Structures are given as C-alpha cells and as structure tokens.
C-alpha cells in the first residue's frame, strides 16, 4: 500500500483464504478500494506449471480471470468509489448498553470478546475492585498491540487491562503482573498462519506474594494465579489489539492451546542456578515477567540418563530451527546436570555446540527461506555462513543466546521439556538498555518489570 501512496499503481496478490483479512487491512489503511487479486491456496509445494495455471486461471474471490483483474486493476482509471473520502473514526464507548446477565454473556460470545470459556462480566464494581490492585490511574496509557506487524495498532489503558482481568477471573493483586505483560506490547494472540503463542514466566518476590505455583503441575491447571494471569494477558491481547477472529484478525492454521493461558513461575528457591531474570540483568528483588514468543512445539524428556546427550541432540534438531528452544526442567534434572559438572551457561553452550544438521536440511525450511535467507544474503552472521555451507556440511542451528533454561516442577519426576520460545525481553543486560529506559507506550522501565505497575 505504501507504493500506491508513492504514486505507483499496485496490485497485491494473495491466496484466497486471506480475502477478508486483505479487505480489512485495506480499509484500516484508508485505501478500501485497493485492487487486491487472489489465487487459490496453497502456493507452497506447487510446481511451475501448476502456478502457471493459477496465473491463467480464475480469481476464486472475484470470480473472474486472475489476469483480467490484474490488468484492469493496473489500468482502469480511478472511479467515484476510489475518490470518496475513506476517513472514519470508530467509537470505543466506556460502557456497553445495559442488559440482562444472560444477554450480555451472549453478546460477549457473539462479538468474539471471550475465549469461549465462561467469563466474569466486567461490572463497574468488579472493575473498580480490580483497579485497587495498582496505584496507577485507570486512564493511564499502557501501550499498543496489534495482531501482526502489518496491521493497525490499537491502544489501551489501565482500565481496559482491568476489565479483561475481571473477565479472566483474576484477583486484584495479580493486576501488576498482567499490566507488565501487556505493557510489553507483545500480543498473546498473534494472527500468524503458523499459530504462535506468547508463553510467560514470572520471577521475583511477587510469585510468592500472589501464590503462584512452581511445584507439582506447574504448567497445568492447578493454580488460580497462574491460570488467570495467563488468561487475562490473552484476553487483553485479543480485545485490545482489534480482535482475534478466525479469517479476519487470526489466521493460525492449526491454532495453539497455549493461547488460552500460559503463565508460569520459576522455582527460584529450588534451582541450583541463578533465576532467569537475574541472568537478564534484573536484581533478584525485582519482580519480572518474561515473555517467550513461540509455542510451536513441546518435546518432553526425562533424565538426564546415560544417553542424555543423544536425546538432547535429537530434541534440539527436531525443534523448528526458526523458533529456538526454551528448556524447562524440574529441579531434579537441573541438580543432576550440576552433578555432571554443568552450569546453566555451559549446558546452553553444549546445546548450541551440538545442535547441528546438514545445511541442506537447514535450508529446506519455509521460515529460513522467507525470513532468514534475506539476512544471510545481506551478509549477517551467523546466517551468512550457514547459507554458504555445502549441502552436506553439518552446521550449528542455534547460537547460545537463542537457548534459555528455566527451572520449575514438583520433583515427582526428573522431567524436562523443550518448548518453542524466543525470549522477547530486553532486560538491563541487553546492549543499550538502561534501568530507566523502557519501550512501547508507557515509559515504565525495562519491559516486563512488574514493580513499576504495583
């Protein structure tokens, strides 16, 4: 669309499943008559002759020959509809029309404002009570969120976060954690076709203050704070970014069950290693929520047994290499690694050194082709070296900084998981970061710092 504004008539071509999304994006960009053209889904895996048939075939959305739409779209003069002012404002009322409990519940479902599990209706009294969980004013601006980088960003304040926290069933004392997660601006409802999720981990004193579970069943439905904080973050994401509606603002093909709720706590007191947030440069006394963007895969293992190295290599190389692993391990596992002589850092280094695959296999990946290759071609390391490697050469697929470890679990089993999750934070240890310099909407310190939202 930027090209149209630069004076270049442009035809965006998409596959037909994106028709609604294309129309909504064009409308929000102020160009509702954008001359989109469509070919059938899928493109991936189609041969040149099959794609030639797409070019010569019908546009499945507009029911006309595809090339007719392209040529007419590029050469037909602008008409009255194109010249009409496409500016508009959308109302965002503070209150909904009063109605009965039953009708309001139906409305929330009908409008896609829930995750289809029962909610608490956000009455004035409940929202007021929730707001007591923070010292900040209800109208303090918190941040912006969007379903994906090319969509419009919607804004939200403390009250909007509190409303969704009520709906999720959260307690007021959880609100600072929810605010800190939302203030990162990272959506827990990405619209990507690949079905991302945002998985968060809490460190610092607040875990104990609000009674989060880092023991038995830490990743399961066994704790009110874990369950409702994660759910509230997900509901804020869908409602404050302009929606998460399949075919419109959500395109994840398979979907992701981490999108219901995914907020956990590290077992700092039972870990032999430093807490995750301290590794990122926060103080041990800081309370912090760290967000990992991923959720594509979850591998499970037990041990470490005699052949743990082979097991780790199998798990690491089975990980989708565009989404690096977060290793979550029970304290039993972490302590066994200590007995084997590993620190957290040396275990991460071992993983990075040994997670290798043939360059041919690394390159035969949709996301390497789409997202990594352009950086490699521009000479950015280590991508450039990976691209230069001979097809049979074994190459490292993760840098040490890609891999993170968090310790939690109830010590009923030496269990560990490798979960797709790229750390999104920028703690004080990140280059250029300062304790006072935040990002996103509100200037509230490093992303994820909870204490500033108390």
């Amino acid at each position, binding site marked *: 669309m930027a*090209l*149209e*504004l*630069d*004076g*270049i*008539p*442009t*035809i*965006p071509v998409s*596959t037909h499943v*994106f028709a609604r999304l294309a129309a909504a994006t064009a409308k929000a*960009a*102020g*160009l509702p*008559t*954008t*001359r989109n053209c469509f070919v059938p889904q899928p*493109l991936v*895996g*189609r041969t*040149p002759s099959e*794609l*030639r048939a797409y*070019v*010569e075939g019908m546009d499945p959305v507009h029911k006309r020959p595809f*090339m007719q739409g*392209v*040529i007419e779209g*590029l*050469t037909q003069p*602008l008409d009255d509809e194109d*010249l*009409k*002012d*496409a*500016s508009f404002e*959308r109302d*965002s009322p503070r209150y909904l029309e*009063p*109605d009965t*409990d*039953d009708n*309001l519940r139906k409305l*929330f479902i009908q409008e896609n404002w829930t995750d289809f599990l029962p909610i608490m*209706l*956000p*009455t*004035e009294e409940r*929202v007021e009570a929730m707001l007591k969980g923070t010292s900040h004013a209800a109208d303090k601006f918190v941040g912006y*969120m969007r379903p994906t980088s090319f969509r*419009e960003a919607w*804004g939200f*304040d403390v*009250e*909007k976060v509190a409303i969704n926290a009520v709906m999720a069933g959260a307690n007021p004392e959880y609100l600072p954690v929810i605010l800190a997660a939302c203030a990162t601006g990272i959506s827990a409802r990405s619209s990507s076709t690949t079905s991302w999720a945002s998985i968060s981990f809490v460190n610092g004193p607040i875990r104990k203050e609000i009674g989060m579970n880092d023991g038995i069943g830490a990743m399961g439905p066994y704790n009110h704070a874990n369950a409702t904080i994660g759910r509230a973050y997900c509901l804020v994401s869908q409602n404050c970014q302009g929606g998460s509606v399949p075919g419109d603002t959500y395109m994840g093909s398979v979907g992701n069950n981490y999108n219901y709720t995914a907020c956990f706590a590290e077992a700092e007191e039972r870990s032999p290693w430093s807490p995750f947030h301290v590794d990122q440069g926060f103080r041990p006394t800081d309370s912090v929520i760290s967000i990992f963007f991923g959720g594509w895969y979850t591998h499970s293992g037990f041990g470490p047994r005699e052949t743990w190295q082979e097991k780790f290599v199998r798990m690491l190389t089975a990980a989708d290499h565009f989404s690096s692993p977060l290793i979550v391990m029970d304290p039993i596992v972490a302590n066994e690694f200590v007995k084997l002589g590993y620190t957290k850092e040396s275990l991460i280094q071992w993983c990075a050194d040994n997670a290798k695959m043939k360059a041919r296999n690394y390159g035969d990946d*949709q996301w390497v*082709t789409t997202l990594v290759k*352009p950086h490699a071609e*521009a000479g950015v390391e280590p991508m450039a070296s990976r691209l230069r490697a001979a097809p049979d050469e074994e190459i490292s697929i993760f840098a040490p900084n890609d891999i993170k470890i968090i310790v939690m679990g109830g010590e009923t089993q030496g269990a560990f998981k490798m979960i797709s999750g790229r750390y999104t934070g920028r703690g004080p240890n990140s280059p250029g970061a300062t304790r006072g310099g935040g990002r996103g909407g509100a200037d509230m310190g490093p992303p994820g710092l909870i204490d500033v939202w108390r």
Partner: protein
Amino acid sequence: MAEKIKVLDPRGYPPKVVGKRLANRPETLDGKVVYLIDCLFDNSDVFMEQLRDWFAQHIPGAITKMIKPRESWVDDPEMRARVVEDGDVAIIGVGL
C-alpha cells in the same frame, strides 16, 4: 423480568483511519515498467517467474523487472525508492 446490569467495554482504542488515494493509473501497460515484487513467501519467486512469462507472451510491450524486499513483512524503503525511480506499476505477492 431479569435485572439489567451495566458492564464495561473490553475493547481497546482503535486509531482514526485517515482516507488516502490510490495512484492514478496509466491507460496501457505498453512501454511501461512493471515491477514484480517477490515478497519472499515460499514459492512466491516461482509464481512471479510465471507472471513474467505471461507478460512476455501476452503484453510483450511491457517491461518486467523482478525485485525483492530485504525481508518479509517489513517495509523496505530502499526497494520502494527503486520501484518509484524507474517503475510505472507494481504487482506484489504472494501473501500479505
């Protein structure tokens, strides 16, 4: 009759949409430079090659040029500047 209750709206604040105008269209593509922008999604390059062949066969007077942004999903001002500098129209795909 059940009591009516008042609840708050959970939605965020949408930005104001400012209407913009599409670019003026040329009457014909003959003699014009048509930029085919491969947006880097899997197999988009193959699709664009087929599009280029189609133009060569059906509108031989159009001059097609292939170009790629530096990465998907991210605006590439340098690429846009090149298209603006010596292009007349563009087709971008396949994806969003």
